[in-house]
Each structure stands twice: as structure tokens, then as C-alpha cells.
């Protein structure tokens, strides 16, 4: 696994390999024949049908091979044993609910092909490398000279001539590749790239990756592995897909921090940081800065929790409730700068939440912005004194909670 790549709080829905391959087949990209098995018996049956198979753990995270989640099985009995070993196994925090049993390929060449977002260019980018089989970041960071890129027009998609140029550049970047004749590469890769891009647009994917794209001994070009991540902001266009992911969607969250899973269920933007000062604020930048402030004062932030713009009283209460689920939290720092958020709403939410939850932990509130006077009056009337500034509030909460040794 490449650090940072597949962190549990990526704002995307990750498809499992077999789900991703189903999508690839749907647009006409060739994939090995495979069966999903949830028991060793099912894996054995698949091998009887398919012959020698590769048994692959279905978890939404990279590095399965190194973790022992991929095994070759030449016979049904071997398939049974391999599945028995992999099912239920823990891979980077994800327990394996199912395996993909796939006909084993005679691999002679591995190519990297991906479609993802290029933030700097404000564009999608198609990445192709004949130094395949690596993670995208490894390719980009360690051998950027071995990859070729194409930034297609998002409306027209990549045109065949652009893809031919891309393939030629990618071949040149590795000093040529003789596995297939140049003409064959051009003919094979143009439709694959076009279809993968088309799929990325259909699914609102932030990542569509075939790695490796395999050239087999018989010269066939086929998807060895596939990774698809769908932009969470586009979920409203893909309710069917989210529903369809069904039982396996739970696999996509089982490796996550339980507090973060709970926060997501409650619709809150929350990141667990492990310290003892609970933090609630509005606006990502402000909450990030609040976390930084607590740290600068020698405190240890328990979390990042952004109640966002236009937060209503109920959201504030939910946020406070959420923090109290974390037993490590010894005090709460609420930092609200109102723009779209109204001070009186926040105050009402805080007061009712404190009363209903019977909160006894230290609570430091710093609040300003739209209707701040009303909000402050409400808080004062309820016996909560707001702090004047954010640094002052940070000092106060750290004093009240105490500096956590070494954290």
C-alpha cells in the first residue's frame, strides 16, 4: 500500500475488483472469466468450472498480494484451501468477505492504464505506462519519465489520434517494447482507452484504473486488475449503483475507524485524530486551524468536526453528541465564526445538547459572526461564557483538560 493513497476517509465510493470488472465488461473491455466465492466450497466449484484459477481477496485497498490475499490454485482442492486461508483474513484493517476466483492468465507483459483527476490542470488525465504493475504514485514519483499522459477534452473524450500519440509516447518513454508489434499496440489500446474514459465519465469516477493491463502469451490484451472510485459528490446520480453494491459496500467501511463510520452515518464531516480535546467548528479551514491551535498550545486534538455552512441547531447538537461517543474526549472546544452560520442557532443547539446530554466536561465556546450578539446572550443566560478569541479559547481548553504527556 502506498501511504495516503487509500486512507479510509477518501471522499469516494470504492468498487471491489469484481464490481469494477463488471463495469469494464459492460463497456467492452476484456476481463478474465471469474466467479465470486463467499466460501471455500464455492471457490472449489469455481475452479472445477474454470480450471487453474487465481484466488483474490475482495477488499477496497491495494497491497493485497504482499499481504497474502492473492493465491494461485491449480486444482479445485487448492482453490478450496486458498479460499479458506484468504476468507476472513484481515488486510490493512479490512476483513475479507469474499474472493474472486479468476482463470489464471499467462502474463507476458504488464501495462499501467489509469484515468484520474489532475488537480493542477483542472482536467481528467489518462496515464499510460509500459513500466506497468506498479502503483500510480510509484510510477509518477519514482519514474515519471516512464509514463505518458493525455488530458482529453471532457466533452469530446480522447480521440483515436490522441490515443495513438499517447501510446507512441509511452512506448518511446521505455525505449520501445517488443511484446507486441507497434501496430498491434495501437490497434488494441485505442478502444481500451476510449472505453475506460467513457466509463469514468458515466460513473463520475475520480479513478478508473487497470493495473495491470495484461498482454497474455496468446497476444490478448486483458484487464488483470481493476480499481474504480466514484466521487462521493456525484452519488446523487448513482443511487442505483450504491444500492447495488449492497452487502459488499459494508466491506468498504469495515476497515474504517468506528467513530468515523458512525459520524458518516450521522452525516457529519468528522476525522478521528486520537487526542482528548474534542473540536467542533464551522468551515473546513477554520476547523483545521482550530486543530492546529490546540496542538500549538500543547494540547492533543481528539478530532476534526466541521458542522459546515448554514448549520442549524440540530446539527450542533448532533455534533456534540458525536464527540461524546469518543471516551478519550475530556473537554470540548466549540469554535464558530458565523458567515452563513447564525450565532443564535449555534447557541440554541449547544445549550439544548448540553442539557439533554447532561454534559459535565469542560466546554469552551468561541463564537462570532452573523447574529453573534444574540448567540452570546443566549449562552450567557444559560451559564456558558464564550471566549473572546480562538487562541484564548484554545489555551483555556488545554488548561482545563491538561496537557497529554507525549501525545
Amino acid at each position, binding site marked *: 500500500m*502506498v501511504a*495516503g493513497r*487509500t486512507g479510509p476517509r477518501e471522499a469516494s465510493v470504492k468498487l471491489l475488483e469484481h464490481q469494477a470488472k463488471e463495469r469494464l465488461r459492460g463497456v467492452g473491455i476484456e476481463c478474465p472469466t471469474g466467479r465470486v466465492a463467499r466460501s471455500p466450497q464455492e471457490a472449489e466449484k469455481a475452479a472445477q468450472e474454470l480450471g487453474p484459477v487465481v484466488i483474490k481477496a475482495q477488499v477496497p485497498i491495494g497491497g493485497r498480494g504482499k499481504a497474502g490475499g492473492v493465491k494461485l490454485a491449480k486444482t479445485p482442492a487448492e482453490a478450496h484451501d486458498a479460499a479458506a486461508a484468504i476468507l476472513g483474513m484481515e488486510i490493512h484493517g479490512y476483513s475479507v468477505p469474499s474472493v474472486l476466483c479468476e482463470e489464471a492468465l499467462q502474463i507476458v507483459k504488464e501495462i499501467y492504464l489509469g484515468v484520474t483527476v489532475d488537480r*493542477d490542470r483542472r482536467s481528467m488525465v489518462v496515464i499510460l505506462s509500459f513500466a506497468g504493475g506498479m502503483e500510480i504514485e510509484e510510477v509518477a514519483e519514482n519514474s515519471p519519465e516512464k509514463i505518458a499522459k493525455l488530458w482529453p477534452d471532457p466533452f469530446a473524450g480522447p480521440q483515436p489520434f490522441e490515443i495513438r500519440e499517447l501510446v507512441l509516447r509511452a512506448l518511446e518513454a521505455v525505449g520501445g517494447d517488443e511484446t507486441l508489434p507497434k501496430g498491434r499496440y495501437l490497434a488494441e489500446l485505442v478502444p481500451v482507452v476510449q472505453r475506460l474514459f467513457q466509463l469514468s465519465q458515466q460513473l463520475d469516477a475520480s479513478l478508473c484504473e487497470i493495473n495491470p493491463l495484461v498482454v497474455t502469451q496468446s497476444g490478448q490484451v486483458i484487464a488483470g486488475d481493476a480499481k474504480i472510485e466514484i466521487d462521493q459528490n456525484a452519488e446523487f*446520480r448513482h443511487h442505483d449503483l450504491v444500492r447495488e453494491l449492497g452487502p459488499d459496500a459494508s466491506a468498504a467501511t469495515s476497515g474504517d475507524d468506528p467513530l468515523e463510520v458512525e459520524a458518516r452515518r450521522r452525516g457529519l464531516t468528522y476525522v478521528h485524530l486520537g487526542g482528548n480535546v474534542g473540536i467542533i467548528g464551522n*468551515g473546513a479551514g477554520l476547523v483545521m*486551524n482550530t486543530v*492546529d491551535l490546540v496542538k500549538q498550545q500543547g494540547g492533543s486534538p481528539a478530532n476534526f468536526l466541521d458542522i459546515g455552512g448554514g448549520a442549524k441547531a440540530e446539527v450542533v447538537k448532533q455534533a456534540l453528541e458525536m464527540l461524546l461517543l469518543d471516551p478519550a474526549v475530556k473537554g470540548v472546544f466549540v469554535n464558530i*465564526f*458565523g458567515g452563513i452560520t447564525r450565532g443564535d442557532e449555534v447557541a440554541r443547539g449547544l445549550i439544548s445538547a448540553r442539557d439533554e446530554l447532561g454534559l459535565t466536561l469542560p466546554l469552551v465556546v468561541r463564537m462570532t459572526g452573523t447574529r453573534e450578539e444574540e448567540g452570546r446572550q443566549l449562552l450567557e443566560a444559560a451559564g456558558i461564557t464564550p471566549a473572546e478569541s480562538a487562541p484564548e479559547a484554545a489555551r483555556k481548553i488545554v488548561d482545563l483538560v491538561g496537557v497529554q504527556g507525549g501525545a
Partner: protein
Amino acid sequence: MSILLNRNSKVLVQGMTGSEGSFHTQEMLDFGTPVVAGVSPGKGGSRHLGLPVFDTVTEAVDATGADTAGVFVPPAFAADAIMEASAAGIPLVVCITELIPVNDMIRVRAFIDPRGTRLIGPNCPGLMSPGERAKVGIIPNHIANPGRIGVVSRSGTLTYEIIQALARAGYGQSTSVGIGGDPVLGLSFSDVLQLFAEDQETDLVVLAGEIGGSDEERAAELIGRGYPKPVVGFISGRSAPPGKRMGHAGAIISGTTGSPTSKVAALHHAGVEVADTIEEIVELARERLGAAVSS
């Protein structure tokens, strides 16, 4: 003067009849912003907040000469709204909406760039030129303070903090611009820095970045090539762990990209002093500008 927005701007608001659109259009009017029209498909011909409402942006432009659009429509319709404004010839579009799919924004850029439209946002607080009594977006009116500092930031609320801290020390802003917290944005730090460079009423620029992406590094390259005004930097999310998305869709450290150390180092390399706290931003500004002249 100011950048992008002034007292002669003519602002229309897309989504003005919605609840957020109504609330913030009223605030914009109260501030003194020359808002001339609203656009809500199906509600053309009606009036709202004392302003005419049109079905399309083109109709609104034809009738009012609007040259700036504020977009307050829900995420599913926001990309369409931005493109409509661009196609109608509006040169400046400010999109407040958050949670727009990244693919939509990529299409938006491909659509508006050849038309020469400038986009601010999305997922941003908008912009405010206090001396011109003009704002588009949601920056609270009460923190406005006219002056000679340009502020450009990826955050909303953090920008307000900075503006307020500067105000307490007697410094106001020529224009404050929130460029937004999404991975795919309209104007970048570099774009806004270039505008501030040419603005005669801006003496110093505060650049408030955050983790994720490499817009701050790009801005540092621009400054390093020779920038005519002092810049004070700030990077939030310094204690954020890698791989965790800190609220903003764009605020994530992926591998070695987007780390605070890289951004701080790039800014230092370009000769930009980087403040550790908001209070330090004010101190650095004071060092560069001298004591504030009370206005």
C-alpha cells in the same frame, strides 16, 4: 480601486429565490452591492427582494447589463448555472455552492475557459471589496473594513478570522477573495496574485493556503520570479495526518503531494514569510507596512 468587483459592477444572482439565495442577496444589498437581477428558471417576470427575476441569464443580461453572476443553486444544477452565465457573456462568475461533482467542474472549466470567463469557487465564500461597498457571496457584512491589504484564501471562515484580526490591528482590505476548497477550482492563487499585483490600492497580499494540491507551490513559483508587493503566507492543516480529508474535498495530503511542509518550504524559497498563527499574520503585515494609519 479593488480587484474583480467594484461599485460599478452589476450583479445578478442565480438561485436568488431559494432560501440561501434570498438571505444572502438581501445581505449583499444591505452591504450596498449593486445587485440588479435574479435568475430562477420558471419564475421569470416576477419580482423578489424588489428586483426583477428572469428565466435565463441571457434575458437578465439583456435587460440589466449584468456583468457579474453569483451562483447559489444546489450542487446538481450548479455546473449548468455557471456554464449558462458564461455562455451569456458574463465575465465574472462566483459560485458559492459546495459538493459539486469534480467531473462537472472539469467540464465547466473546459466550457468557460475558451469564453474568457473568470470563475471564483466553487465551495467558496465569494469576494468582497469593502471600499467599494460591494460583495458577491457570504462574507459577513459586519467584518468588512476598507483598506489596502488583499486577502486570498482557500477557506471561508478562516478568511473571516484573518479579516477580523487585521481589522483589530487597524488594517482593512482592498478585496478579499475566497477561491474555494475544492480540488478543481476557477481562479487559482496565482491568478488572484496577478490581479493584486496590478491593483494600485493593494499594498500587501495575505495568502492563506491549506493542505492538499499544489496551488500554493505554483503561487510560490510566481512570487519567486519577482512579485512587486510583499506577501504574507499562512498554511492551515499543519497538524493534519496524511490521507485524511480535512473537510474540504481538496484538503488531503496524498503521498508527498499537498503536505504543509512542501507548501511552507516553497513559500520560504520564494522569499515569503509564513505565519504560524493568525496573530502572526497581523504582525508580519505590520512589519512590512508599518503601523496602520487609522482610517
